[in-house]
């Protein structure tokens, strides 16, 4: 991977579980790899057998090799890893049935290349580019209401990818330029912003939907998020929004990338 000329790195990385009584059930997984040039986030779907493991396998696999032209081979290998780590012989009847129904998770991969930022997304995990304190780019979704749709997620069942959406994903990943629709995502390339205080946020769906909502508090919400620099800040922010019934109660994860000198001044 050709590295960027300007050094971006993680200013913050954290997560708040949907249920504080069961923090171990958090199904969001995050990895930062390749000397902070590769950022991977996956959000396991609540209603699946072991989406925490599937999300973990996906971020590991994307860290080893981002899913590009050899997507099907990449996916098959990830499914094999998931199956190897699932102890099938000791499953109860319901675990076996739930395992056969599959596990599902999103995937967002952010690669910091020399001249641009490359984004690959399957599902509803979001990247936001912040310039001059405002959202200048959003990917894969543009609007809060996009999150109401049922997302296309990566599954541990290979047959679940025989859909028009995943055919589009395949074409997009192989293509040299963006070929997916802006609504469904797949792949995007962003130029590095010229201003040195720009930020890139990676967020899971509940937090992203809350941030993209357009009302009188849109800017105030963004200001709060870009000011987060420790876990307590994020927990406080998420808990407050949940208490006010403004944010869906879901595992909520955040990575903030910026230039090394970029600091919170909000």
């Amino acid at each position, binding site marked *: 991977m050709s590295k960027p000329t300007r050094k971006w790195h993680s200013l913050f990385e954290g997560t708040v579980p949907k249920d504080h009584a069961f923090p171990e059930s958090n199904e969001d997984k995050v990895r930062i790899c390749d000397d902070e040039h590769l950022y991977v986030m996956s959000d396991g779907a609540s209603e699946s057998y072991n989406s925490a493991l599937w999300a973990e396998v996906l971020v590991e696999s994307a860290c080893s090799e981002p899913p590009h032209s050899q997507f099907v081979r990449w996916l098959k290998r990830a499914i094999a890893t998931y199956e190897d780590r699932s102890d099938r012989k000791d499953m109860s009847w319901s675990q076996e049935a739930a395992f056969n129904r599959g596990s599902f998770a999103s995937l967002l991969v952010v690669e910091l290349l020399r001249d641009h930022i490359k984004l690959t997304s399957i599902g509803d995990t979001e990247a936001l580019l912040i310039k001059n304190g405002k959202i200048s780019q959003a990917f894969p979704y543009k609007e809060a209401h996009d999150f109401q749709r049922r997302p296309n997620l990566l599954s541990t*069942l290979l047959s679940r*990818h*025989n859909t028009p959406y995943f055919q589009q994903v395949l074409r997009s990943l192989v293509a040299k330029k963006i070929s997916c629709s802006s609504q469904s995502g797949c792949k995007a390339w962003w130029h590095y912003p010229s201003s040195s205080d720009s930020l890139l946020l990676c967020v899971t769906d509940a937090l992203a939907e809350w941030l993209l909502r357009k009302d009188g508090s849109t800017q105030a919400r963004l200001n709060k998020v870009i000011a987060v620099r420790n876990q307590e800040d994020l927990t406080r922010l998420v808990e407050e929004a949940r208490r006010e019934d403004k944010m869906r*109660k879901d595992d909520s994860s955040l990575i903030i990338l910026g230039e090394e000198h970029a600091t919170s001044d909000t």
Partner: protein
Amino acid sequence: MPYSAEISRSQPTAFLFVIDQSGSMDEKMPSGKTKADFVADVLNKTIYQLTIRSTKADGVRNYFDLGVLAYGGNGVGSGFGGSLSTSVIHPLSAVEQNPLRIDTRTKRVDDGAGGLVDQTVKFPVWFDPKSSGGTPMCEAMRQTAVLLVDWCNSHERSYPPTVIHVTDGQSTDGDAEEIAMQLQQISTNDGTVLLFNLHIDASEGAGLIFPSSEASLPDAQSKMLFRCSSQFPPHLLKVAQEKYPVSAESKFFGYRVGIEGIVDFFDIGTRASELR
């Protein structure tokens, strides 16, 4: 806003199936199965689906309490057999661990490479078909109310219980309307108990599902079941609209519903909003 409480392990909801096991349930449907056989099959599949949707690698999560109350010639009591028969409502994990038996079935599934392969699946059975005697619907509704008052008192913050009542006939112990109406006054802080009535019939066609008026219903019994059925909570309205022309005025009621309608009724009626 009512019917918006999250459903979680610390805040489960309840599904109570109230099943008519009177003698007329032995009538055969067009498929050759009796009404009792078919209802038992759909109920077992519904419990199976609720269970596997709540099963994770670390075990079954108690998002739901499940109950089956059966009424017929043997009176009114738990519809579960075996070790579950001691009470009507159980946490989902207890239901998962105590089926009457586990049958083995084969189903064809997509192999992911354009073909189909046979897959052996275990199919647990909790509820066997029975049919005898009269239809003590009033007593069944009264016992349902007693159970749900207790349940709501101990789950004040939960999404309220859903009662799915399946019958093919007329009450033989009086008019069940008043007690069925009272049943729907029982509540948690998130709303009143939902009562979904399903009238089944062995004949094909000419049924009504999710009507918004009793005008086209033929008799006093069907009109009574319509009146004492709940309207759709918002999230179920959305689900039903994917297949049926329902509106906010529609009642969660089916009359002379055939095989597909019975399956849909159970399926839509047990769709929880997102589980946490």
